[in-house]
């Protein structure tokens, strides 16, 4: 009962199969085919580690080692080894915490918010950006943990019955909200990342030559066989996870900003904090994604997947969020003056002209002025300029948190309590430790995991890869 097929239809369809847009820039260059994607991305997973990778790993491990000594001293001696005093009780630690959490936000923005907006350019950068999120959140979580002094008591933040009586955690405290926000954010990001990795692990599994890779990637790929029904469910899961992660990522930095905004300290007590912190987080996160992606694309020769087009689009996000941050700085000043509250006016004037003026002006230069350079197309499509500016932005964003935290605290309510904060070697050392941790984790990721989401990139090859002429 076979129905005779219309040969003409098939032929016509074959002719109509080429539908690469003539107007849009291709997302994948170099005329890649679906098979090329597998080859190019699996190469660094299957090959021996390169010399540059091993050098970078040695540097990261060295940094980690030096930092680990400082962490050990901190735990052994106590928080006194830091430069904190009675007036400035939060300084580098919380600055670093907010800085790392902020960096993490770009990964979720790329993978979740850009998925909801159907932005296909996210596909070749989302995997590495999500990895960055996960490692950045781990680094961030180190700081409140270490700041407790007795890290072995860290489980007290959980709503567990206290062994000294039935005391519960305080659900009115933004610090406790942080515990729930950060741990939920970490868990959901990890699950989202892993779901995306499963089909790619299956690709590596099916190419693996030796027994160990077969066993390891076989276990990691969860028996993936590429069935259409599983793909259908998979896409549904990815969409809903994106829908959940979008309000989640906005809530996380909102809650981080509540740590400051719900207090009554002049300079912190502002309602603008949540949107201003979220914009700042995306701003610094995109800068970090650029720093990492520029190195990765060069080292692993992925220029055809992470193109100048990708870099330009990320730079545009940086102009937008950098401008929002700039407007937020100005608004804070205006409101401090307009409110007529003397303490508030003093706090902001002191930021600009007080003993920490240099930190304030570093922040203004790096965050407000430098991203405006990206209005010039020449600069935002220049890799060297982008690389330098991406680091400048992250220096600026570190100073933003430092300025908010330290300048608001160091002039206490009583002038007799006024103090300055000077970091010690252990303040610096613990920060260095997180760099070592981040670097080591990211390098391991680039060696053993596919740095680009192969399955997703394969799905756009037909529409967005320009065939070699």
């Amino acid at each position: 009962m076979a129905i005779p097929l219309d040969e003409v239809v098939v032929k016509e369809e074959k002719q109509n199969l080429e539908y690469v847009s003539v107007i849009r820039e291709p997302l994948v260059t170099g005329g890649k085919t679906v098979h090329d994607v597998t080859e190019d991305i699996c190469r660094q997973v299957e090959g021996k580690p390169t010399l540059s990778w091993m050098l970078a790993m040695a540097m990261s491990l060295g940094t980690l080692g030096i930092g680990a000594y400082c962490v050990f001293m901190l735990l052994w001696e106590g928080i006194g080894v830091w430069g904190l005093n009675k007036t400035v009780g939060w300084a580098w630690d919380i600055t670093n915490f907010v800085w790392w959490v902020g960096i993490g936000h770009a990964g979720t923005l790329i993978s979740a918010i850009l998925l909801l907006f159907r932005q296909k350019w996210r596909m070749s950068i989302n995997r590495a950006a999500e990895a960055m999120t996960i490692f950045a959140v781990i680094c961030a979580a180190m700081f409140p943990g270490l700041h407790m002094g007795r890290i072995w008591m860290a489980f007290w933040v959980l709503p567990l019955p206290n062994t000294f009586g039935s005391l519960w955690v305080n659900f009115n405290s933004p610090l406790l909200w942080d515990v729930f926000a950060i741990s939920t954010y970490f868990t959901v990001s990890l699950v989202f990342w892993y779901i995306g990795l499963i089909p790619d692990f299956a690709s590596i599994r099916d190419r693996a030559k030796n027994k160990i890779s077969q066993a390891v990637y076989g276990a990691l790929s969860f028996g993936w066989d590429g069935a259409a029904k599983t793909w259908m469910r998979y896409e549904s899961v990815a969409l809903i996870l994106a829908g959940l992660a979008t309000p989640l990522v906005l809530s996380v930095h909102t809650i981080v900003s509540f740590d400051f905004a719900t207090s009554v300290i002049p300079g912190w007590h502002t309602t603008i904090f949540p949107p201003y912190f979220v914009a700042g987080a995306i701003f610094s996160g995109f800068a970090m994604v650029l720093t990492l992606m520029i190195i990765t694309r060069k080292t692993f020769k992925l220029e055809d997947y992470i193109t100048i087009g990708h870099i330009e689009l990320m730079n545009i996000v940086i102009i937008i969020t950098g401008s929002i941050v700039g407007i937020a700085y100005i608004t804070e000043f205006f409101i401090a003056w307009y409110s007529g509250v003397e303490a508030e006016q003093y706090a902001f004037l002191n930021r600009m002209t007080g003993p920490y003026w240099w930190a304030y002006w570093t922040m203004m230069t790096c965050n407000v002025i430098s991203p405006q350079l990206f209005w010039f197309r020449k600069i935002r499509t220049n890799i060297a300029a982008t690389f330098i500016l991406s680091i400048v932005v992250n220096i600026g964003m570190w100073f933003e948190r430092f300025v908010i935290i330290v300048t608001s605290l160091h002039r206490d309510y009583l002038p007799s309590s006024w103090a300055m904060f000077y970091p010690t070697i252990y303040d610096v050392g613990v920060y260095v430790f997180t760099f070592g941790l981040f670097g080591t984790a990211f390098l391991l990721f680039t060696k053993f995991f596919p740095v680009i989401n192969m399955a997703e990139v394969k799905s756009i090859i037909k529409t967005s890869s320009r065939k070699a002429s």
Partner: protein
Amino acid sequence: MEKNKNFILGIYDDEDILLSAIKKVRQSGVKIQEVYSPFPVHGIDEALGYKRTRLPIAAFMFGMLGCTLALTMQIWMSGADWPMIIGGKDFVSLPPFVPVTFELTVLLSALGMVATFMIVSDLKPYKKPRLMDIRITDDKHVMAIDLANNELEKEDIKKIVKETSAEEINDKNF
């Protein structure tokens, strides 16, 4: 799945040819066991006649569970079990409970949905995949037709598949 051992595999290179092939094969009255792809193909679920997945419902239910648990926990802990006066604030007031409730709603929704997905799709560590063709995870789409589910003769099915511009037609025995 035990009795399904003999398959005819149509191998395709292009997702659009695959989609029209699925429609044609199904129109010819041949039952397709499953189609395997290296990446998600848009519209393949409609072509195969799959019903929409009910995973969003699972996500919603788990979210509701998280929301209920979070509110119950907070109200019971700070309102009933051991109320503490902190800054003279109310023991039970909803606004400060919003952040934790929201986070736990998202957490349970995400974890519950993913767990459901893993269970219904039978994805688990150390599971040996039943691969129709090793190139599925690289660049080939495979249409698997189970002979036991079809009344047509093997050669007739092969003919139908061949007419859909399949690159290769293979037999697979498990």
